[in-house]
Each structure stands twice: as structure tokens, then as C-alpha cells.
């Protein structure tokens, strides 16, 4: 009976410890900012529409040679991480708690971080905003509990790269290095943050 009690206590401890595990790989959970079934359905429909648009644009601008060039560009930048040590904040070297907290601080007090260089890693995510008729690109960073994902917008080089041909697929693991800046869209009072002149690397 005593042994049984000890086993139960041990099992409970294991369950408690494993219950706190850092569950990665729940891609898209943080991106999915919905709170009702209706919104989930709307998002799914929007995603499907996006895919259709993508297929059409792919047909129009598909060029095998340019695709090869792009792959070279992405893979060619892979060495940057090892050689360049000039970034002010290297979030790739931080624990997930620290990354989350740093990105949070960047969003809350952007003026303190403006002009600083950052290196971040996470999952690639692109979205089309109807009002500005532009694509926006994000590096999604998960936190320790994998529930509070944050997206950092970035502009790859000077923004001349064509989506989707030159960009990685959604949810691809990427490393982005760029300068932090704030900006406003025309007719929009909100202040937005992004990494400009960014170097984009796709992880293997």
C-alpha cells in the first residue's frame, strides 16, 4: 500500500513537470487571433481565397530561372549569422521568455529601440491587407507557453522582392536581421513597428 502511494506521488510529479513543457510546433496558433467559430470559418475562407490568388499570380509570373536565383539569395545569406556580430540585440541567442519580453518591450516602448539592429528567428507568415493593397511579412515568435505568439513585421532588403515567388512558404523557419523602425500608414493613426533593410535567411 505504501509502495502504491509512493508510485502515485512519483507519477503526479512527472505529470506536473511534463505539464509545463515548452510545446513548440504549434504553428499558426499564435497567428490565429480568433475568438469565435465564426471568425475561424472566416479565416479559413480567407486563406482559401489567398491560395487561389497565389495560384493565379504564380501562373502569371512563374519563372524557373528567377526561382533558382532566389534560392541562391536565401541560402547565400546563411553565412551572415556566423560572421556578422554587429547586431545590437541578437534574439536568436536568448531563451524564449527573454525573446517574448524583449519583443513586448519593443512594441510598448518602440522609441527606445528605434535605429537598433535586431536578429530574430521564428516562423514566416505573410498576409494581404485590403486597405493598403499590400502584402505584409512577419516573423512569428512563440513564447514559453506557445500561446502568446508575437509577429514582427519586416521588409526584406528594399522591399523589391516579389511575393510569393521569392519568399519562403508560410510557417517556414526563418532568421531575420534588420533595423528597427516605426511608421504610420496613410490615413491610419496607429503606429506600426518593423525591421527594415532586413536580411532573410531560411533555416534548413
Amino acid at each position, binding site marked *: 500500500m505504501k509502495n502504491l502511494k509512493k508510485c502515485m506521488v512519483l507519477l503526479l*510529479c512527472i505529470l*506536473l*513537470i511534463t*505539464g*509545463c513543457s*515548452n510545446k513548440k510546433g504549434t504553428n499558426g*496558433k*499564435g497567428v490565429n*487571433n*480568433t*475568438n*469565435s467559430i465564426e471568425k475561424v470559418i472566416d479565416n479559413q475562407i480567407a486563406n482559401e481565397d489567398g491560395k487561389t490568388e497565389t495560384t493565379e499570380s504564380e501562373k502569371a509570373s512563374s519563372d524557373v530561372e528567377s526561382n533558382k536565383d532566389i534560392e541562391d539569395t536565401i541560402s547565400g545569406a546563411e553565412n551572415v549569422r556566423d560572421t556578422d556580430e554587429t547586431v545590437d540585440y541578437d534574439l536568436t541567442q*536568448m*531563451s*524564449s*521568455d*527573454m525573446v*517574448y*519580453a*524583449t519583443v*513586448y*518591450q519593443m512594441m*510598448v516602448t518602440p522609441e527606445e529601440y528605434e535605429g537598433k539592429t535586431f536578429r530574430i528567428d521564428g516562423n514566416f507568415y505573410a498576409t494581404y491587407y485590403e486597405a493598403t493593397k499590400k502584402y505584409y511579412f512577419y516573423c512569428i515568435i512563440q*513564447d*514559453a*507557453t506557445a*500561446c*502568446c*505568439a508575437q509577429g514582427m513585421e519586416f521588409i526584406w532588403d528594399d522591399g523589391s522582392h516579389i511575393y510569393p515567388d521569392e519568399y519562403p512558404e508560410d510557417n517556414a523557419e526563418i532568421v531575420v536581421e534588420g533595423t528597427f523602425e516605426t511608421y504610420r500608414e496613410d490615413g491610419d493613426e496607429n503606429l506600426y513597428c518593423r525591421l527594415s533593410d532586413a536580411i532573410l535567411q531560411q533555416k534548413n
Partner: protein
Amino acid sequence: MEHGKSMKEGVLLIDKLIFYFQYPFVRYALIVGVLIALCSSLLGVTLVLKRFSFIGDGLSHVAFGAMAVASVLNFTNNMIFILPVTVICAVLLLRTGQNTKIKGDAAVAMISVGALAIGYLLMNLFSTGPNLSGDVCSTLFGSTSILTLTKGQVVLCSVLSVIVVAIFIIFYQKIFCVTFDETFAKATGMKTDFYNLLIAVITAVIIVLAMNLVGSLLISALVIFPALSAMRVYKTFFSVTICSVVLSVLCAVIGILLSILAGTPVGSTIVAIDIVAFMISCAVGKVAGGRA
């Protein structure tokens, strides 16, 4: 060779900690974490001895509900709404048994789940943030909230903590009497109702503060574990209180540092350390044979 390797790893970890401490939010987290751990353990002994261990859980759910209402009403400073609501509920709950139709644990359970359900419902219906699941998760489990504190929140937390500690020291004898024999204390002319009210108010303040550290679902652990651990080793009220404070602060510091280094959720890491401390205390208590 092995020794040299582990030494190198240790130095690397210390270097990493020093690097992390350059960030103000890490320093804030440690200050607030220590203060909350100190306050919660001070009152934990009283609450455990008065059989109010579960009240922390109930009140934290009330605080969650109040936070949801404050978010819906777009309060810039949630604290001005959460604190009074939690204090009122604490007073109501700790006064149960005095001419109330719904008694003790039933009242705690009712208010606890009711506030939790209403809070989540309101957040769902009138969500103001873009990431509802993130907001709820962060509030319930603390997540990384402790690392996102502003300077103003740190100051508020420090002031409230100083007030809580001061009240506990000033009214130590009275709290001691009310904790062990309320009936006798009342018979000797002590205003027990006032001191119960004081305990209720302090409990509510600690609960609201601790929401930032461990989240509303884990607050009870911060109140109960250090007190219970200390009771395994020591027997007098004073020594149990001191031991409880030391254990709580130690566990909070280790938990925060460990979670920052390993990237684990802060709240649950602290509670896991509290559980380990409780187990060690049990073992020490058995070996020492319950010395006073």
C-alpha cells in the same frame, strides 16, 4: 576533464545571467517576484492555520473576472478596478458563517467558478486585444507577465508590498491571536472582526499582486506551499513564518532565474520549485523528528 567542462558551463550560465540582467525588465521581474513571494508567504501561514487555504484560489478567479471587466471597459490602469472588487469579495468570503445562507467552501466555490466563467465570457464577447487565447493564457498561468512589467507597476507593487509587510509586523500579535483562538480573543475584548477584515484586505492585495507573477490559477501554490513546507520543519508560529518567508523568496528567485535561462513559463516553474522545496522539507521534518 569532466570537472573542467562543468565549470565552463557554469561560467557560461553566469555570463548569460549577467547579460540578461542588463535588461531592466529582468531586474523588475526579480524585484517584484521577491516582494510578492515575501508578502504571500507572510499571510500564507495565517490562511493555512485558519483553514482558508483555498480562498486564494477563489479570490484569484474573482481578480480574473474583474480584470476581464476592466479590459472590456477599457481602463488604462486595470488595478484601480481589480483591487477594490477583489477586496470586497475577500471581505464577503471571509465573513461567511456569520449570518449567511451560503456557508464557507460553497461560497468560495460559487464565487470562484462564477467569476472565472463570467470573466472568460466577457473577454470572448468583447475582446479588445488581437490575441484572446494569449491574453487568457497569460492571465491564468502568468506565462511571461512578470517580464512585461512597467516601471509604474513595479513602484505600485513595491509600495503595496511595504504596506502589507508593515501591517503584518504592526499587528503581528493580534493576527497571531485571531489565527489560533478567535473565540478566546473575542472574549478578551479584542476586535476580531476588524482583524479578520484586515486579513481579508491584505489577502486580496496579495492575490492581485501575485497575478502578475504566477497567474490566477497558480496563486494558491504561492500562498500554501511555503507555509506547509515550513510547518514540516518548525512548530512555533514565529519560526514557521520566518522559514516560510525564506523558503518562498528562495523558491521565487530560483524559479525566475531558471525560467529565464531555460525559457520555461515563469509561474509554473516557481510552483514546481515550491513543490520540490515541500518534498525536501517533508524529508527534513522526518529526519529531524519534528523539532520545535
